[in-house]
């Protein structure tokens, strides 16, 4: 359960706030996609959830406790986070990167080993990649490792910022589906930022549209595609038109 109450983020020296008075309640087990044009404040809003950014005003509640009450490192160990920029540690192997949060939590060695194996299977990479340095991976492979790292400590909440951005459409779809299945199986609460409204529509239970830092629409994918939210129509027109065009071509 994630609750945002009147959350605003204003960067020092910026003319306008990046996030403006956002209130959202995300029940446990829900998969929310956060969409919106570039610069609309998606990353800024997402980072308030694990307090990489402290909101200028407003309250964030995680599992019914004010997030500001947790020591930040404890809060963050409980929330899996996938960076828009990947953010793997260059001096650690893939294995060490994935194992980092469990090791910070002081898990026993065997448990860490087993867990690294388990999450690594999810991302469908050859096993010998475990001992490689992140620099020896392609952009898409690194993104997959970042997803595995976010899941390693068995978080209840996962927040992801463009996690599949660098992947080819086939892998992207496969990994999206695999993640969605995991979300179901583990009972995760997921917030995923994406540019891709088609992906949002196919994976999420609920889509939140941001524009200029404010929520302009918040509804199910079906309602979004049906044009119930005129503010978001532009965003969903494109995938709908493309889908129709491809269906025409295939006929």
């Amino acid at each position, binding site marked *: 359960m994630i609750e945002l109450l009147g959350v605003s983020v204003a960067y020092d020296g910026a003319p306008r706030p990046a996030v403006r008075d956002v209130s959202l309640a995300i029940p446990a087990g829900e998969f929310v996609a956060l969409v919106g044009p570039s610069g609309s404040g998606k990353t800024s809003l997402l980072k308030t959830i694990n307090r*990489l950014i402290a909101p200028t005003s407003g309250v964030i509640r995680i599992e019914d406790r004010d997030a500001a009450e947790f020591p930040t*490192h404890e809060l*963050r160990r409980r929330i899996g986070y996938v960076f828009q920029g990947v953010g*793997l*540690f260059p*001096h650690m192997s893939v294995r060490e990167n994935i194992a980092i949060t469990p090791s910070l939590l002081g898990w026993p060695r065997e448990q860490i080993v087993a867990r690294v194996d388990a999450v690594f299977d999810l991302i469908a990479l050859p096993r010998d990649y475990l001992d490689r340095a992140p620099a020896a991976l392609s952009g898409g492979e690194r993104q997959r490792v970042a997803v595995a790292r976010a899941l390693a400590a068995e978080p209840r909440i996962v927040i992801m910022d463009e996690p599949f951005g660098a992947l080819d459409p086939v892998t992207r779809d496969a990994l999206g589906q695999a993640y969605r299945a995991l979300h179901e199986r583990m009972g995760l609460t997921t917030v995923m930022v994406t540019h891709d409204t088609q992906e949002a529509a196919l994976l999420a239970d609920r889509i939140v549209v941001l524009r200029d830092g404010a929520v302009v629409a918040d509804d199910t994918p079906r309602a979004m595609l049906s044009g119930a939210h005129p503010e978001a129509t532009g965003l969903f027109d494109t995938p709908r038109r493309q889908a129709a065009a491809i269906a025409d071509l295939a006929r």
Partner: protein
Amino acid sequence: MNAQLAAAFATLPNYLSQHVLLSLSSMALGAGVSLPLAIWAARRPRLRWPLLAATSLVQTIPALALLALFYPLLLALSGATQNLLGASVPSLGFLPALLALALYAMLPIVRATISSIAGIEPAITEAADAVGMTSSQRLWRVELPLAAPSIVGGFRTAMVWTIGAATLATPVGQVSLGNYIFSGLQTENWVFVLFGCAASVAVALVADQLLALVETGAARRDWKRIFVGAGGFVLAALAALAPAAHATRGAYVIGAKNFSEQYILADLMALRLQAAGLSSEKREGLGSAVVFRALAANDIDVYVDYSGTLWTSLMHRTDNPPREKMLAELRDWLKRTSGVVMLGAVGFENNYALAMKRERARQLGVTTLVDLARVAPQLTFGTDLEFQSRPEWKSLREAYELRFRAIKSYNPTFMYRALDDGQADVITAFSSDGRILAQNLVTLDDPKNAFPHYDAIVLIAQKRADDAKLRAALQPFVGAIDLARMRRANLEVDRDQEKLTPRAAAEKLGREAGLLK
């Protein structure tokens, strides 16, 4: 030539181990202070500038001056702790050298640490926060490992600087490879100078190459390379330090200023003590202001000074009494003010005198300082490094109204060279200097008695005042060496052909003067 090299190699284990011990200790202290400071400042941009500015400022002070500054500082501290705690910190030798070099080592380490930590990509430090690291976990698991190659690079620079600068510890009484360079410079023993330079360069190169392995190893996360570099460094250090571990410290410390006569007399005193069954060690190449203070502070036990020097520089006297009267007054004054015992006069005087080439003096018709004053405006005056700040120069100038066309100061060796090749017309010479004979110089008479007498006198520190064995071993020095013998011994060390080491000259002089069998 071979004898000189053999003499150099004979002292190498001792000089090298002391040099390495000093360099490593200074690095350890410098790094121990710099690293935490730099890590702290890397997190706080506001502290960065002051820390970098302060360490850079230290770096702009010439190393020699920095070393020299720590001596009076520690001397004052030593006095304070003596009053407060009844125990004093040593102000000569290892401690001032250690502190100055540690300060000197800070800049490269601070700069490398701050810039490498502050230069880590923000995305990586943010990732460290996002996976739930505390700020110390972030430091140890992410920032330091990523900054390690640059920090080792900073260490490398600091290590090479420190090894080079450690040669400058000699004048504050710390034995180092600089002993070759300083004594070689004074006695025109170029074999020693080159040997000292080569040894210090070799040590620096070895340290640099081994640390380079650690640096590249850290950059490539190649543990084998790091291990080889660090292990090699430790082994090399241990090998160099080995002689220091079982070196026996001498019971007595003999001081010497930085010219040939002082080296010879210090060696001769050491030989006398040895004959009497007493062990000793030497602190050579000390500045003339440092050496008396060191004796007064009991950091050294014995050395030879000159009556006129103490008379003018320490007692601040400008009158010029007869020889015996001056010695008597000086003896009382020393006893009263610092407890230092004047054992007696060695026999010869080493007076300040102005000297010219015999030919040139005849051309100009100069035999006395009165004559010199007449032609001085056309002449260039070459002095040793300290003469112009000594009170003798003031009284000389005033007594004869000397006005030179130019005044230049030189290291004594180069001062004689300057007179020889005409860069200087008149120089400050010492009456016992062998080069007066060798270069056929004349010393100018001083009819107005502007220069006092400079009897060579043996001085003993207060704490050894009642040491009968020491006094018995040194008592025979009184009246034992006349000017001709001292001049010849000095010449044997200073000349270019058939050069003797100070020790060989001391043995010869000792036998001639009946001080050694």
